[in-house]
């Protein structure tokens, strides 16, 4: 198929490789090295989408990151993504793209009726119209807006692509490889600095690829290729194309988005699609260049209206003509180069220059080339709906506020140039307050805030000579600060056209008849009239105008619209632009994919998985796992078709009747050593610790300074100055930090050391009336009688040759032990227990049975120790010493903490003895009371009591002490249940605690 607008002998594309692609159901061809935009333009396709609010036909305006319109739904290798900038995505085989924001098609879009109803869609439309009536919002307005204003569709499929994160440190990061970036990176590299040079586009060189200049008697393109090839040989330089530095964060941290595999049609399985770089640079050079801004005129959004620099780039880089009958509409010299390029390719342009009869080097050259120039002229209205067909042009009066005469001329594209806006986003993100430069009427960076230096066009320097000189100097100075080397650079000689002064003109007056829309922000459909309305309605701050009109709030961050919007406000307000100020620039500079942000941290890699040494055994024995922090713990061991409830009942019952073993490796373990260890524990826990003998364990509760319980657990005195502390699985890390805080900051005089030993020990609990018999078989040489190893006793022994620690402690309320061995022997211990336990009907039990056992015993755990309970609340006040001081003690005397009717833990049974009570249910007196129904407490833990064969729960209730015997309702709006419950003691089984001591 013929590419109707492709030029024959110009461009940097690879004509040997034809690429076939699909756009809106039609097949087209382009070349390797094309972007989707250049390939479509090569086929004469301008109409690519419909605008956001009015659904007006839209085409390409830019050729890169500046493009506000051409956001397409793009599918590559079956993966579909919305809002892809057609000017940035490279053409690959099999690429398929569709227009967004149009229905049923981009050619015929029903939403375009909005355009004819546009008087109903002015600024603030959404605020005003959809505020009333309020009840309409969810049902009527929101669904309507969503359907009509969709910007593409996110794929509902799982993203199969691979994304990566990379962390990098360097001496100098250079963002942008135009003339300033290349020269500064080169100078720094020559000084031996570790340099990263990032270029957003596939080709290095920036404007050197399109500007008619020469450096050291080479073309800009040849010079940039020479520098790049030299940089490539230097080991201290990392060159990254297709890489956009999009965020400048604290302490000179830059984040860069690299498109690694998007342009590869056959990428290997392990090549990531995209990569996110976190770069900590000692120094940063912002060589981000500038973006051409349009001049505002009637229907300036018609397809075929493009930036003059983009038209030139399409010709010089891609060999593509945006039109064959171009108008060049400009207020400055730079657009003349576009006219020259057209002329070179045998296309006859006409130049409309808003300046009065003007003389400069380029004007002379244009005249010499026989190009028609009309001074004091501009385009008033572009004619044509889906494509520019002609233009109404006019001669400006002297004050440029009205028109002297108008006429209509034929054209098929309008290449517009309203001068250049430095790309200051990164500088602004770094904290740099920008300043307004009158000379170029745009903002440039002010004093550096972090270690950043802005050079070249980004700093408002628009001559190559000046840019190259300052770039060599800056690159050399910044690097020699770091490397102490000072390589002499020969500054190259530059030949360039000298530009004359531009016209500070940005918006064409309206014609006498007709009121065409003049767009300022293309992506968000904000026209001059919208800004006028906002100001008329009293919005003054530029930040308010921005939010009311949505000017500059789209994904292009107002790259082409910001300054025109500011000019507009300043004109109407009769203020100068610096007084109006500018809105805040925030990262990301360009949209990036969610996949890159997430990187490899998805699915199982979302966080580390901690497995106990017995994990494989659990897995082989049908354990169903539950996440406990990062740990995987067996929740129950499934037999046959058992449900969770059936299995946990069986396991818990077996503990009450025979014996069971439970993997308790995940409990936090902290080794505490030092002569002051006892004193330290005495301060950390609420109970007394000074007299705990060696070989004994004790249960302890620790508080925060505000009196709330932080954690509980047992601590054992291993030897005179050596303790073994256990914490709950969930709080292990916090408790260690807490202990370190007091030892390092509050009481550094205490001679104590703490270290986590959680991973060093594997633990198994043996619980049930037959546990002693089983223990004696596990340790045949050991006296495990009640006298030799009483409740809370501790013995060291060996398990068939493996050193073991035996603690007689119990969480289940049964006679129970806990055995610890070195982690490596964990599986050995477990298998021995399973083997020897057979004759006692031993069964492994999971966390569900473990919970059942502790709940019916009334033992508190995480759900009760939720950071909002003090010891009295959970009936642990017996453990609070009155004699000694400890962390949080002073808070316990607070009035609210000593109230007679304070909340307290109780037990609950449903009056029907059948209905399970959902955890989290609220307790109320009257289930039918009007809302808000006063809440008297909440259900913290629920189980099926295997001892009594009915549901049982723990709850924290106001005035709990005096509530025993009363009836309340446990209501759960989430589960839609309301259950009548009877309040009883929290100790449902063995309230005297006889079993643990038996």
């Amino acid at each position, binding site marked *: 198929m013929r590419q109707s607008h492709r030029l024959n002998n110009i461009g940097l594309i690879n004509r040997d490789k034809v690429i076939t692609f699909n756009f809106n159901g039609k097949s087209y061809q382009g070349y390797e090295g094309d972007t989707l935009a250049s390939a479509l333009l090569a086929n004469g396709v301008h109409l690519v989408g419909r605008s956001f609010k009015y659904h007006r036909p839209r085409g390409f305006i830019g050729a890169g990151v500046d493009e506000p319109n051409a956001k397409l739904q793009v599918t590559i290798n079956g993966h579909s993504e919305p809002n892809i900038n057609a000017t940035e995505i490279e053409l690959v085989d099999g690429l398929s793209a569709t227009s967004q924001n149009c229905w049923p098609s981009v050619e015929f879009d029903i939403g375009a009726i909005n355009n004819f109803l546009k008087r109903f869609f002015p600024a603030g439309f959404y605020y005003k119209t959809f505020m009333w009536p309020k009840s309409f919002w969810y049902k009527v307005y929101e669904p309507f807006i969503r359907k009509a204003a969709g910007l593409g569709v996110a794929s509902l499929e799982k993203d199969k692509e691979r994304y990566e994160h990379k*962390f990098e440190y360097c001496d100098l990061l250079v963002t942008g490889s135009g003339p300033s970036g290349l020269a500064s990176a080169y100078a720094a590299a020559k000084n031996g600095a570790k340099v990263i040079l990032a270029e957003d586009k596939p080709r290095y060189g920036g404007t050197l690829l399109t500007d008619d200049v020469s450096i050291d008697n080479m073309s800009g393109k040849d010079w940039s290729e020479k520098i790049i090839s030299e940089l490539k040989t230097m080991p201290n330089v990392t060159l990254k194309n297709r890489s956009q530095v999009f965020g400048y*964060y*604290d*302490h*000179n*941290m830059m984040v860069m988005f690299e498109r690694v595999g998007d342009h590869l049609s056959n990428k290997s399985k392990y090549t990531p699609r995209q990569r996110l770089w*976190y770069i*900590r640079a000692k120094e940063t050079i912002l060589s981000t260049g500038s973006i051409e801004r349009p001049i505002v005129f009637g229907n300036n959004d018609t397809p075929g209206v493009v930036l003059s620099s983009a038209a030139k780039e399409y010709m010089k880089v891609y060999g593509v003509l945006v039109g064959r009958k171009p108008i060049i509409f400009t207020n400055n010299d730079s657009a003349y180069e576009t006219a020259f390029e057209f002329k070179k390719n045998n296309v006859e342009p006409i130049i409309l220059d808003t300046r009065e009869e003007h003389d400069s080097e380029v004007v002379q050259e244009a005249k010499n080339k026989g190009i028609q120039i009309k001074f004091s002229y501009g385009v008033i209205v572009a004619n044509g709906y889906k494509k520019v067909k002609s233009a109404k042009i006019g001669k400006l009066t002297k004050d440029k506020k009205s028109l002297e005469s108008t006429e209509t001329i034929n054209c098929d594209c309008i290449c517009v140039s309203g001068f250049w806006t430095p790309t200051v986003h990164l500088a602004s993100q770094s*904290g740099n307050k920008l300043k307004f430069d009158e000379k170029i009427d745009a903002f440039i960076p002010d004093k550096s805030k972090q270690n950043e230096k802005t050079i070249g066009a980004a700093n408002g320097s628009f001559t190559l000579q000046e840019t190259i000189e300052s770039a060599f100097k800056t690159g050399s100075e910044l690097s020699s600060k770091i490397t102490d080397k000072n390589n002499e650079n020969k500054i190259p000689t530059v030949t360039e056209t000298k530009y004359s002064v531009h016209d500070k003109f940005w918006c064409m007056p309206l014609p006498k008849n007709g009121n065409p829309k003049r767009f300022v922000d293309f992506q968000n459909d904000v026209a001059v009239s919208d800004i006028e309305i906002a100001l008329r309605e009293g919005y003054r701050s530029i930040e308010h105008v921005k939010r009311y009109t949505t000017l500059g709030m789209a994904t292009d961050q107002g790259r082409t619209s910001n300054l025109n919007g500011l000019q507009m406000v300043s004109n109407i307000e009769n203020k100068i632009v610096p007084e109006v100020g500018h809105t805040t620039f925030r990262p990301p500079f360009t949209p990036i994919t969610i996949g890159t942000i997430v990187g490899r941290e998805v699915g199982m890699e979302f966080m580390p998985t901690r497995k106990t040494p017995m994990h494989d055994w659990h897995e082989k024995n049908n354990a169903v796992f539950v996440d406990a922090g990062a740990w995987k713990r067996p929740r129950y061991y499934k037999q046959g078709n058992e449900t969770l409830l059936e299995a946990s009942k069986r396991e818990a019952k077996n503990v009450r009747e025979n014996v069971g073993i439970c993997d308790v490796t995940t409990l936090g373990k902290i080794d505490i050593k030092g002569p002051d260890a006892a004193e330290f524990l005495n*301060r950390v826990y609420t109970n007394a610790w000074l007299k705990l003998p060696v070989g004994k364990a004790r249960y302890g509760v620790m508080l925060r*300074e*505000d009196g709330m319980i932080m954690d509980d657990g047992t601590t054992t005195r291993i030897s005179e100055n050596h303790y073994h502390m256990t914490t709950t699985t969930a709080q292990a*890390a916090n408790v260690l*930090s807490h202990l*370190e*805080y007091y030892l*390092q*900051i*509050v*009481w*550094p005089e205490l001679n104590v050391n703490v270290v986590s030993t959680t991973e060093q020990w594997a633990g198994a609990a043996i619980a049930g009336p037959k546990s002693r018999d089983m223990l004696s078989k596990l340790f045949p040489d050991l006296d495990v009688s009640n006298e030799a190893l009483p409740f809370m006793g501790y013995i060291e022994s060996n398990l068939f040759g493996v050193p073991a620690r035996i603690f007689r402690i119990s969480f289940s309320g049964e006679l129970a032990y806990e055995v610890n061995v070195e982690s490596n022997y964990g599986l050995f211990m477990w298998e021995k227990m399973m083997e020897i336990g057979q004759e006692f009907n031993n069964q492994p039990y999971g966390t569900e049975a473990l919970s059942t056992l502790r709940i019916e015993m009334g033992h508190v755990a995480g759900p009760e120790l939720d950071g909002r309970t003090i010891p009295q609340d959970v009936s642990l006040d017996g453990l609070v010493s009155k004699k*000694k*001081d400890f962390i949080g003690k*002073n*808070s316990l005397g607070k009035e609210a903490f000593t109230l007679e009717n304070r909340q307290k833990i109780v037990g609950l049974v449903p009056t029907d003895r059948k209905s399970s009570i959902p955890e989290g249910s609220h307790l109320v007196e009257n289930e039918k009371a009007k809302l808000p129904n006063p809440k008297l407490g909440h259900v913290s833990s629920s189980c099926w009591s295997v001892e009594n064969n009915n549901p049982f729960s723990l709850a924290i209730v106001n005035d709990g002490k005096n509530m025993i015997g009363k009836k309340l309702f446990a209501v759960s709006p989430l589960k839609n249940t309301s259950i009548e419950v009877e309040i009883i003691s929290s100790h449902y089984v063995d309230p005297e605690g006889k079993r643990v001591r038996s």
Partner: protein
Amino acid sequence: MLHINCPFCGLRAQKEFAYGGDATVKRPEINKEVSKEEWDNFVYMRKSPRGKHIELWHHISGCRQWFKVQRDTATHEIFKTAKMSEEIV
């Protein structure tokens, strides 16, 4: 992301650290009478200055040491870091 100079390990990424609040707060001495006001001030009352702030950080994924950082809360500039035994003036 901040870049924090641990007095024991050197410059490390913020990811490795946990924030620990105002470093100038002094816990009332243990085993001594303390007035209600003094205790409540210690537990609850914190200044939230805009500007220089001496605060605690904990190198949890490193040497496990608590130390002091003098940071500007508005700009995140870090002026100094010091061991607990050292003063920041």
